[in-house]
């Protein structure tokens, strides 16, 4: 089983490499170190969100509210920064994570305690959180000149000529890798997703894990709220609208099964990288941006069909062996 999964990640990695070379032939400027580092920076937020979405998908759920959560957290700290520009940037980051976590916990409570199905809950909070942005901001934007220098400076810090965003994504990758592969929390998440009934019988508290998974998803959405606002130096009601679908497609392409309990952290990152590569490569090979949505839709469909096919084949082989 492990061999197949490693294989899958390897195949995905090969596809990314081949794609990169292909685009490079069509447009050599695309594979210069500068351009590749730009693609990595551009994909970092997607990687972080895909990794946190993976935690939720592992337990057979989905968090559709991440983009609205991100936008609301980002707007709230931006509004605060216009009033109190003197506060240090770490304060804003912490606050953004805190707001995000709170919104995530609300999702978790609704699902675990009020027993509102996850799809209804997160579709509902998707519009509630988005609506609240209009409410707190009066529909106005916060522009780049209204942020303090400190607020925007962190995002432009570079280390080994790679951006702060990229290194942060690497850090999140390592943390989530350890969390899912080397802690009891991670193991229990996999078993809850693989077989919820069995997991409950061996004493795993499902509700606790649902709330924790959604809080983590909220925490990273909050973190990305700061990152998004600082990177694009603008906070508006429209930021990251529809981004939850990109995040979910990154997970699906990365081989995280929506049936729960299956998927690797590395696969998830590779899925995000492939989506990021496609988004960045389309303009480089002269494909109109209007095609982007249709192409990502087609890729999601293709990826889930391939995923299900391989899963079903695996089930069949298990049955033959028995």
């Amino acid at each position, binding site marked *: 089983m492990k061999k197949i999964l490693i294989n899958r990640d390897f195949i995905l990695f090969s596809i990314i490499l081949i794609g990169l070379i292909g685009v490079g032939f069509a447009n050599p400027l695309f594979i210069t170190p500068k351009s590749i580092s730009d693609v990595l920076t551009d994909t970092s937020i997607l990687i972080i969100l895909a990794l946190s979405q993976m935690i939720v998908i592992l337990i057979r759920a989905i968090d559709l509210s991440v983009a609205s959560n991100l936008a609301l957290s980002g707007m709230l700290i931006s509004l605060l920064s216009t009033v109190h520009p003197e506060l240090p940037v770490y304060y804003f980051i912490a606050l953004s994570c805190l707001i995000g976590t709170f919104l995530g916990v609300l999702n978790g409570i609704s699902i675990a305690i009020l027993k509102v199905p996850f799809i*209804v809950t997160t579709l509902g909070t998707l519009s509630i959180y988005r609506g609240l942005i209009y409410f707190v901001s009066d529909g106005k934007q916060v522009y780049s000149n209204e942020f303090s220098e400190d607020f925007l400076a962190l995002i432009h810090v570079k280390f080994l000529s790679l951006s702060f965003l990229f290194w942060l994504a690497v850090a999140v990758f390592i943390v989530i890798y350890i969390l899912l592969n080397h802690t009891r929390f991670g193991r229990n998440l996999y078993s809850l997703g693989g077989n919820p009934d069995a997991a409950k019988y061996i004493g795993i508290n499902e509700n606790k894990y649902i709330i924790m998974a959604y809080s983590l998803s909220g925490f990273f959405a909050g973190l990305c709220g700061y990152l998004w606002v600082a990177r694009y130096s603008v906070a508006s009601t429209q930021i990251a609208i529809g981004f939850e679908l990109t995040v979910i497609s990154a997970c699906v392409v990365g081989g995280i099964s929506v049936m729960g309990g299956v998927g690797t952290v590395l696969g998830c990152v590779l899925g995000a990288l492939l989506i990021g590569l496609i988004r960045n490569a389309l303009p480089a090979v002269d494909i109109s941006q209007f095609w982007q949505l249709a192409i*990502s839709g087609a890729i999601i469909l293709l990826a889930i069909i391939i995923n299900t096919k391989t899963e079903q084949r695996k089930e069949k082989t298990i049955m033959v062996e028995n």
Partner: protein
Amino acid sequence: MSMIPDKPPFKLLDILYKKEFILFVVLITILIINSNLTPYFLDLYNLIDSTFLFSEKAIIALTMTFVIIARQIDLSVASIIAVSSVVLGYTTSLGYDTWLVISLTLLSGALCGAFNGAIITKFAIPSIIVTIGTMSLFRGLAYSFLEDSYYNKFPKIVSNLGSGYLFGYIPYAFLTFILLALVFAFILHKTTVGKKIFSIGNNPDAAQYTGIAVDKYTFVLFTLNGLFSAIAAIFLSGRLSSVRPNIAFGWELEIITMVVLGGVYIYGGSGSILGVVISIFILGMLSFGLGLLNVPGVGIIIFTGLLLILSIGFPSFVRTLRRKNE
């Protein structure tokens, strides 16, 4: 294998009756509050015109009710509206005959729905994830075809349908919705087809073993949902008299809210057309009233989201409390 709880038939009926009764009380309360808050609410012409705000969504809500009762969900309906509206605008611009234009528009919607149904049944993939994919695929096709331009010429019949009245009083869209609601209530509650849809939703495996062609039903329901999205697209394009690729953006949420608020269980197997119709009126009158009171659209969005979560969360919370007391 997930566990499917048995439902005692008597209790289920009781709850269903209660649900529709509660919904009806909510509707009356909203009407009373609205008419007290603003004198413009009870104006007959205003009330009739307010149906324009929800008739198109309501038409899709009917087939969506069937889809959800059969334990599926379709998030791609609004994107199918975009595709069908583009087909409507494009075929008109080619100068096709009116009936050909309308047939092709309906066909495009049905094809999109059939595409959903085929992938869901052929590969046995959960409908939620398939329709998340087709939601961007269909919307994306509309964008890539139309880019940043728009259509504003439609056959005369389409414009009439979208904003016209029968006998000068009853909007065609509303009339269509009411007639279709009657037909769908009959199919769901009085025919074996309806019974089969309920049993598929209650337990698909058991339904399969009793000889119901579950996949065939699923496929037909998704095709029908696509077809009805195309019907809604005709009314909507006629009413707006302009089509952009972002048409009906976010409607899937509002339509699902209509269905779920109407007491249809999101995991299938129970619900009624009457409940959905009442909830459509609740949501319609609510947003109409809030609009008259100058509450911005955003307020309505937040309110709808809250209503959606609370309408499911509150009863199940009360049920858990009651179970604990026992």
